[in-house]
């Protein structure tokens, strides 16, 4: 049962991260358009955040248990605050950034890193921690890594399709960002609790 819940949240984090990328494109759209330049900066920012998040998550995984718990909470809090900023002040920030930087690439660099980097890096830091969670419960490291990234990528696909074809055509971007914030708080809190479970509380798959 715990395993099913665990994989559900791994998949949900995948949905959130790629769905957030599409929402990001709609947030940027009124200010920078939707050209290939916008997508280049957006995709690069997300990849940079995935990279930083993976390194961060790997570091957290190897901390001593007590310090790991505290760090997980603090890092998640930073991510939630970052997402909160994007959801509630993102539009105003973009209006300001757009007028400050005449060069579209500089404007996009500031906008993408300012609005998306921190939350995406923080939430993607759960990936290595989830791998560690499985590995410490007897799953071979290669299998653990394959399972986590496989489930997460299925979540990514679902996130793209649901956001593009169901959510964006029917709901305002601001509402969706608030929904993302709520789901991110809930799912990261649940994952932190699951990651703290003692090894014998769950059976490795």
């Amino acid at each position, binding site marked *: 049962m715990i395993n099913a819940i665990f994989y559900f949240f791994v998949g949900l984090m995948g949905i959130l991260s790629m769905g957030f990328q599409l929402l990001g494109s709609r947030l940027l*759209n009124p200010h920078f358009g*939707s050209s290939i330049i916008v997508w280049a900066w957006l995709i690069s920012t997300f990849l940079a955040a995935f990279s930083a998040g993976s390194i961060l998550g790997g570091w957290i995984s190897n901390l001593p248990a007590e310090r790991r718990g505290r760090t997980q909470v603090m890092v998640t809090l930073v991510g939630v605050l970052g997402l909160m900023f994007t959801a509630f002040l993102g539009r105003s920030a973009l209006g300001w950034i*757009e007028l400050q930087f005449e060069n579209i690439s500089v404007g996009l660099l500031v906008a993408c890193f300012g609005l998306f980097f921190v939350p995406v890096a923080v939430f993607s830091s759960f990936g290595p921690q989830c791998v560690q969670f499985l590995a410490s419960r007897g799953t071979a490291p290669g299998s653990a890594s394959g399972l986590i990234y496989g489930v997460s990528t299925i979540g990514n696909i679902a996130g793209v399709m649901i956001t593009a074809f169901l959510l964006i055509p029917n709901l305002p971007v601001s509402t969706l960002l608030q929904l993302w914030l709520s789901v991110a708080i809930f799912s990261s809190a649940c994952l932190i609790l699951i990651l703290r479970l003692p090894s014998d509380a769950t059976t490795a798959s």
Partner: protein
Amino acid sequence: MTMRTLFLRFLLVLVSAAALSGADYVERYDTLYNSLTIERRGTQVELRAKSREGDYLESAVDLADPLNLVVPYTRSLYGGLFFQPKPQKVLMIGLGGAGFHRLFMAAYPEVLLQSVELDPKVVELTRERMYFTPTANSPIATVDGRQFVKRSREKWDWLILDAFRGGYVPPHLKTKEFYEECAARMSDEGVFITNLHSGTELYYADLKTLRTVFPQVILFQTKNRGNVIAFAVKYASPDMTNPARWPPTAELSAPLQGRLDLASIRAEVIPWPTARVARAKVMTDDFSPVEFLDAMEENNTKR
């Protein structure tokens, strides 16, 4: 006729003579924003952009007769004369191949015709293949239309929105906030002119959005084409939708050198689709599912 007009005409003859000497060709370019085809057949050069339905004609010029408005909807844009007959400053978002520009520049050489085009390749092809030469009074800015409007401090008498990427319209140029930014940059007597494609739900959403910003909007349908040109003003009165109040076409036609039948353009007025617009949604920066509305055929939603 002023010396300036004479000089412009002389320049036009020289450019036309140089242009006429070329052979037929088809060239294709993939740019940052478009997939473009430029094709010359005889004296006609066409600029096309790829869209879902195939190649979409962006602009065309007859090099033997550059003042001829080859693409029909560009004639309808001149309906702006009914609402602001003496423009001093005109902003056109979307250069295309400058199909509208040549006659306008010849008819009103003293008027500032500022163009804004996002795609540098479109600007290059317009200059090098369609032989359009910008002057001090017809500059081209290579930037996003919305960014230009936001940074502009001018008050425009005509603000023409004709920005397409193939048949597709960038969503950020379709929202209430953008139309408000345009209205803020128009003179009190100014007119906002936009080229719309009828036949999809996007058309009605667009009309509803326009009507939330502009107190008066009137529609002209280009004869035998899907183009509808919307004209909108910032004032609620006098009534701009009553053709009886418009200046006489003979008076307006004088500078156009007999190139345009304004009486037939006047007859292009179509009724406001009240019932359909009432059911449409207003598009905002926060909610503008342009791609989805554009894909919804009108017939799919008929009740």
